[in-house]
């Protein structure tokens, strides 16, 4: 599977994942459930290895090629702008995403091999998981926007299936449906954005250029004489809306907290590491377009920072361990979008890189906790697990520290700090955005360590004797913890004597688009890093004060059974602000009441209209015809005198007519 000139083929990477899925779907019925898991893990494992082979080839010392372009066959053709091949294009951006998707994906497959043991729909689960990895890989490695859209929708479909894995409970189905429909709305905007780009410059990633020429166009005729800039702005906003849909940014983020209804490995893989970051990949891929229009970059940055703030505030008051992490994911992706919005594309991707590790780690550790507590998800029913799950505790601590941005040691610190620094210094960044980002960093530190102290410290609240997790649940978590700490050093900024290797690594991809001058005047950067590090420590101290074991509980402890927590569950807190934050600023309730109920009403009305008015019209016609029938019967009642009368009438009519006519 290596081409003549030595470049490895790219198509096997998604092909193996797809093969695994197909084999499981077709044959697993006759095998033991466990074999499905084994097939799934091996398939993704091979994909991961092959990604490494491709990576080695690309990043090897004598690497001549910057990217591999491998068109397979013509897919869409003959329809004017809609022109696409099925083909793969792996440049450094796609490579990083592919490594994360297949690497973290593989670890999660191994974890879920143990986690999902004995589950009723195990075969189905692993089939969908493989299908998901396949879709995600095609998404990141497609060579044009239309093929990417295939992966994009495939990922949406798989998340629908995996969220609704335990389909017996109707809440899970409702959550799955909500996830699919909200992301589908985002996809509608995305396809429109792609179409505009296709009409303007074509969407083939190998030469995604020409946006600057379009910007100069005073009038673009295909779009009602709008100026080039406004057309680009519209296209960019559509793409941003598509990204917001998939990456759960404001205002389309309502589906992610409910998506926690799926099994925990699903949350880890889809709703932490891979799918939700598709929006980041999209904006990174179309950075040429975004950079042309400053207002667009401002919009992206604004959406990013607002979502980060929104996510952090909501995470503080959540009671379900997975919902805390879900809101934290929304917040962290907000940071990534912020990074892209201020022009620091490589740093945005770097934050994705580190976030994938520690968020997946946190989810998996949470999974182990839930698994060992037999499904208990409410953090206020947990406590003092430090003693029972020491290794999980250590990993969770590392993850939480990295999430909070514990200075110098964790990867989270470097990636978040880089974003905050560029938010301050780049041409697109601005001070208010930096300050809001900084404040959100404080909130992040608070809620991450609130989680740690409530779950692992203090005395045990409920008499649940947790059983020790199997090894397979623990060592993938350990590996992720390791990366969560080490990954930061990949982009050690100059201020800390590092070579900012990651930014140079992405130089060729984001060439001139890098609006952010790599200004590294040591002192200022050191000061900013110090500020954010300090804030992290302050946050941790505050969390210790508020939620640590010695502290008298200030925040009341709502006790709700696990699992039923949905956006619209009754508010557990007394203070209205806490309830507001708990229910995600009532976004979900608003959408449910306005859109969902509205659509149902319109549907029933339309159905009524169809049956009564449109169909009624034809029933009316039938009625009229029946009316004529009744009229004619009058003359056919069998009595001869009636016939004679009619005859006479005819005779008279004819004679009078003849007379008049003459």
């Amino acid at each position, binding site marked *: 599977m290596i081409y003549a000139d030595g470049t490895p083929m790219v198509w096997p990477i998604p092909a193996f994942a797809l093969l695994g899925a197909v084999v499981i779907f077709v044959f697993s019925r006759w095998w033991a459930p466990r074999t499905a898991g084994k097939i799934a893990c091996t398939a993704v494992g091979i994909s991961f290895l092959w990604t490494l082979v491709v990576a080695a080839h690309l990043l090897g010392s004598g690497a001549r090629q910057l990217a591999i372009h491998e068109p397979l066959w013509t897919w869409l053709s003959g329809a004017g702008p809609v022109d696409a091949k099925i083909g793969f294009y792996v440049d450094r951006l796609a490579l990083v995403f592919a490594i994360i998707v297949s690497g973290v994906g593989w670890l999660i497959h191994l974890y879920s091999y143990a986690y999902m043991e004995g589950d009723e729909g195990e075969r189905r689960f692993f089939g969908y998981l493989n299908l998901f990895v396949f879709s995600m890989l095609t998404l990141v490695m497609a060579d044009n926007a239309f093929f990417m859209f295939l992966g994009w929708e495939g990922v949406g479909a798989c998340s629908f299936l995996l969220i609704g894995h335990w389909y017996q409970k109707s809440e899970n189905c409702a959550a799955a449906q909500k996830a699919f429909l909200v992301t589908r709305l985002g996809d509608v905007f995305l396809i429109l954005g792609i179409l505009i780009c296709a009409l303007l410059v074509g969407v083939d990633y190998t030469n995604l250029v020409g946006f600057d020429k379009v910007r100069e166009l005073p009038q673009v005729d295909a779009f009602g004489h709008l100026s080039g800039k406004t057309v680009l702005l519209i296209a960019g906003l559509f793409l941003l809306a598509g990204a917001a849909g998939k990456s759960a940014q404001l205002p389309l983020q309502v589906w992610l907290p409910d998506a926690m209804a799926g099994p925990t490995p699903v949350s880890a893989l889809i709703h932490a590491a891979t799918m939700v970051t598709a929006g980041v990949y999209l904006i990174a891929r179309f950075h040429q377009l975004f950079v042309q229009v400053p207002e667009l970059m401002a919009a992206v940055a604004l959406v990013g920072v607002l979502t980060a703030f929104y996510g952090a505030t909501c995470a503080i008051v959540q009671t379900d361990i997975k919902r805390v992490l879900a809101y934290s994911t929304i917040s962290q992706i907000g940071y990534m979008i912020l990074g892209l919005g201020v022009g620091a594309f490589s740093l945005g991707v770097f934050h994705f890189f580190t976030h994938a590790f520690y968020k997946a780690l946190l989810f998996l550790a949470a999974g182990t906790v839930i698994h060992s507590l037999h499904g208990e998800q409410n953090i206020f029913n947990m406590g003092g697990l430090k003693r029972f799950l020491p290794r999980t505790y250590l990993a969770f601590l590392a993850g939480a520290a990295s999430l909070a941005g514990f200075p110098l040691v964790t990867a989270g610190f470097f990636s978040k700090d880089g974003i905050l620094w560029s938010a301050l210094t780049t041409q697109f960044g601005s001070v208010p955005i930096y300050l809001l980002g900084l404040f959100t960093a404080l909130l992040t530190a608070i809620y991450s360590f609130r989680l740690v102290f409530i779950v692992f410290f203090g005395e045990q609240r409920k008499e649940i004797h947790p059983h020790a997790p199997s090894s397979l649940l623990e060592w993938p978590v350990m590996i992720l913890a390791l990366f969560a700490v080490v990954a930061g050093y990949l982009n050690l900024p100059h201020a800390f004597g590092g070579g900012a290797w990651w930014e140079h690594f992405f130089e060729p991809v984001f060439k001139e688009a890098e609006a952010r001058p790599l200004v590294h005047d040591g002192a200022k950067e050191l000061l900013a890093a110090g500020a954010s590090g300090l804030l992290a420590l302050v946050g941790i101290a505050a969390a210790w004060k508020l939620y640590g074991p010695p502290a008298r509980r200030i925040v009341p402890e709502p006790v709700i059974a696990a699992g039923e927590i949905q956006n619209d569950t009754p508010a557990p807190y007394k203070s209205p602000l806490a309830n507001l934050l708990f229910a995600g600023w009532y976004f979900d309730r608003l959408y449910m009441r306005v859109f969902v109920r509205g659509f149902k009403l319109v549907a029933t009305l339309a159905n009524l209209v169809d049956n009564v008015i449109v169909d009624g019209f034809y029933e009316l016609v039938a009625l009229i015809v029946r009316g004529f029938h009744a009229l004619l019967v009058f003359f056919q009642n069998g009595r001869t005198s009636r016939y004679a009368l009619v005859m006479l009438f005819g*005779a008279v009519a004819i*004679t009078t007519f003849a007379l008049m006519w003459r």
Partner: protein
Amino acid sequence: MTLLAVIFYIAAAVAILATGAVLFARNAVNAVLYLLVSLFGVALMMYSLGGAFVAILEIIVYAGAIVVLFLFVIMMLNIARIEQHKDLQPPTRPQLLVPVILALVLMADLGIAIYAAAAGVSSGKTITVTAIGETLYRQHYLGVELASLVLLIGLIGALHLGSAAWFTHQKEANQDGTC
């Protein structure tokens, strides 16, 4: 106003009144007799119009044969008086409404047509039987044949229906013993 005209108008009046009487007769026999009177009226009119031979024929064939036939049947089916037979009662006013209107319209039409045609006055000379005979057998010989055919068919029909009636009557009679 010659004698013939006077006769004509009197006959016309009698014929019309008699026919009206036929319509509103309550008794079948009275109706037939009124019919006879009406036919006589018509015969007189024909005479005054110069159709002496035809008038005679009318009396002999029409009145003599056809109306008498009616009388026989009425007697045979003994439907004379109205008491037993509800269907003899004359038409009520509402029943008459539509037919009368139509009839009036028809009369108006034909009247207009007649006056429009401006036929003028009858020539007054009676047409001799020889003239009738000549034209009858010289030009209308075909008509005569056809007329005979019609009569033949009428004969056969009456016989056939009559015999059918006779046999059914016999069967019923035998059953309930009355002759």
